[in-house]
């Protein structure tokens, strides 16, 4: 039996990110002083002191750095096994964890793009071959 997929535990800090996801935009925290991006969202910049950040929209493009075919699903994903999970290094720098579309794993280093999908009334992100 397929369980319900886990809720996304949105916090005050991450609310702008998830609101943008609903509009199919992927936001990163940007540190203007250091000219660096970070993900996942943190309470302060990793790159300069005192650590101011602002939100900037990412290109959604990057390269695949790791990919695994998952046979042990998360709750709610039982009907989808096996499915691909991966890490994509965005062109802006940070790595992002997400599902990878398709059945065959792209080769490591492949160019990837963000792929939006809607389920249970919410928009979520995966990556697909660019």
């Amino acid at each position: 039996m397929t369980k319900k997929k886990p809720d996304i535990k949105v916090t005050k800090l991450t609310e702008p990110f998830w609101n943008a996801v609903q509009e199919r935009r992927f936001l990163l925290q940007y540190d203007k002083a250091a000219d660096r991006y970070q993900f996942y969202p943190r309470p302060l910049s990793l790159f300069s002191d005192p650590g101011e950040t602002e939100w900037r929209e990412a290109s959604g493009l990057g390269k695949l750095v790791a990919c695994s075919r998952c046979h042990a699903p998360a709750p709610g994903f039982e009907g989808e096994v096996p499915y691909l999970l991966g890490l994509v290094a965005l062109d802006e720098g940070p790595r992002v964890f997400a599902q990878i579309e398709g059945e065959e794993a792209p080769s490591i280093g492949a160019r990837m793009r963000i792929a939006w999908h809607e389920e249970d009334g919410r928009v979520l992100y995966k990556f697909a071959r660019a």
Partner: protein
Amino acid sequence: MTWLTDREIAVIGCADTKLELKSGKTALELAGAVTRQLLEKTGIARSQIDGMAATLANAEAHNAFWTNMMADALGLELAWCQASEIGGGSVIGNLVRAGTAVHSGLCEMVLCIAADAPSTKFVTKQSGYREEFCDPLGYGALPISFGLLTSAYTAKYGSPDPGMARLAVAQRNGALLNENACEKLRVPITEEDYLASRMISDPLRLLDCVMRCDGANAFLVTSTKKARELGFDNLVHPVAYREMVNFDPRQEVDDITVTGFSKVGPAALRDAGLKASDIQSFHPYDDFYIALILQLEQIGFCGPGEASAFLKARDIGIKGDLPINTGGGQISAGQPGLAGGGINLIEALKQLRGEAGARQVARAENAMVTGIGVIQYARNWGCSNVLILERGA
């Protein structure tokens, strides 16, 4: 840290319980059992123990007063008490934290104890990025992180399967000789069995993965001076220890397979005045075999990408030239949750104390033990620590 290299700290005895799957016991009951065993073995009275360093427990994670409750259950009055929360690195971390407390004069005799029963009760939650940016996107469990790591390693260096198959068989052979290993795991396997085991998070297999079980381990730490005064002559000394928490927070290393061991491994060896090739037995933290591949390379036993060939070229069994996880490690003995790091450490202590019975290695002047703790977002693991032990003169 001359107080380490000068052998000013000593472990005077150790104990561990039989590892059991779904024991039905609480972590406190297991803590009591291992403490009783340790007191019997060493002859130390509880009134002589004035310090305690514990790990947390998956089975007790809802209790914010866990160590105080444990002290009360065990009947200990303490001048110093702490819990380490560096995940699987906590047990070896506790040995040196206890040494620090003894060295600084806060206490004299420390019970280092780790007890957990995650196969009976599991109440730990991993909040933060895990619940927000992993679980809702299909992240089921830890094997996924290690499957991802294996894929990145394989793309760079080729598959480490041949070396990991050697590890799987060698550690299982150790568990067959280890009466405290989980009975479910005390079944011989071949390299073919390892390679044919089903994929969990491809390229990571079932026989790459640790199995959670229930159990406890403990040891006593005091000053070498005090140990001698009390008449103990079978001593093990921590001579070097390095720990790194949250390696590479800015993702400046453009390679997720590079871990904190690349820093702490060489540093600990340097502190001890040893080369990796001087280590007589190696007891690496083993939640997944890919973690051993990375440790062998990054601590300096071999070069990057060479671990699989290294494992095939060396004999890593009990009678070999580099015995690894001689009691089965966690993968073949079982992982008692947050007490898991003690599986590797207690085995090293038993080897150096000459208490390993049928598994006794020939060369037991020194040993290296490691710890791994906590999984990070889109990198590898959070804590890497390395402990080098030497047998007392």
